């Protein structure tokens, strides 16, 4: 955790706000003077008083993570004023969907080969003899619960493609909390114009 001794130099927040950096400044541990842009972005998007209120409402050991996530969102919003972080979420969801479809197709092929429906094409295989697949756990990938979130408490279930990005108000879908690894979104039908 970065700390800025107000005895030595003001934190980035107090420098920006042009005020004395007092001992116990709530910003000082998280906005070191050598990272002025971090506070500048957070201030621009959220405002100093909103950040103060938010930090005061959470436990001290969580504040560093909170500030870093705010800084991340603020930077994303400064770079992309229309979509901010939500652009990244949509992008990642699409990537996951795309790769999941490829995985499903690969798994389907594996099952077919394992069940001997498609000739392997290997030169040493006789067309009369049944093809014996290598001894391996062929069910490993088809049955794998891709949707399980490691480290999370969700328990998952069989992977379902996450819905397209749900705007909670435009489509009246509820966004489920994700902090502990819960489901993504409340259903499909989100706006597809991102």
């Amino acid at each position, binding site marked *: 955790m970065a700390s800025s001794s107000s005895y030595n130099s003001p934190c980035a927040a107090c420098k920006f706000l042009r005020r004395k950096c007092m001992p116990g400044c709530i910003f000082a541990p998280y906005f070191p003077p050598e990272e002025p842009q971090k506070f500048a972005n957070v201030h621009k998007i959220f*405002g100093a008083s*909103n950040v103060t209120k938010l930090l005061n409402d959470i436990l001290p050991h969580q504040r560093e*993570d909170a500030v870093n996530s705010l800084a991340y969102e603020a930077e994303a919003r400064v770079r992309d004023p229309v979509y901010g*972080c*939500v652009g990244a*979420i949509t992008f990642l969801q699409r990537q996951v969907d795309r790769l999941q479809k490829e995985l499903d197709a690969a798994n389907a092929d594996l099952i077919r080969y394992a069940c001997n429906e498609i000739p392997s094409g290997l030169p040493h295989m006789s067309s009369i003899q049944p093809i014996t697949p290598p001894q391996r756990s062929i069910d490993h990938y088809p049955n794998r619960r891709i949707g399980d979130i490691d*480290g999370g408490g969700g328990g998952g279930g069989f992977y379902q493609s996450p819905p397209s990005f749900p705007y909670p108000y435009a489509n009246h879908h509820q966004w489920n909390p994700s902090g502990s690894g819960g489901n993504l979104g409340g259903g499909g039908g989100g706006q597809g114009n991102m």
Partner: protein
Amino acid sequence: MYAVVKVKEKILSSNSPCAACKFLRRKCTQECVFAPYFPPDQPQKFANVHKVYGASNVSKLLNDLPATQREDAVNSLAYEADARLRDPVYGCVGLISILQRRLKQVQTDLDNAKRELANYIGPSAVLPILHQGRFWGCPELGLSERLSISSNSGPGTF
């Protein structure tokens, strides 16, 4: 799209104040920047956005955008504000972290499946696919590689 926005603006401000002006207890004028995007029947939307960003920050952001992009901007702000209120520590960044891990997992599974397939149809058929570019982050944002969050209680690095 711009014409639709202007029509919405006119209808809303002539009938009843928008959710923003109701919340802020002020007169909702024809020029209200919030009116097209914060209808009076969705009071929570503005309440959340105001709590996280503040009305003046949202107003500045909208004024800096062309009218055709404001609806998307407001909806993404509302989404992020909702996420932040549900998870004050990570907000929607928690979801990004989860998606990145999921993407990595699916990529690993895909690589493994294709290696298995190579046993049946030969390595040359799958090599070009195995070597497809992969990443876990958001190159257009360039953020994911630089930020690390302590693992005290959160979703981990991303």
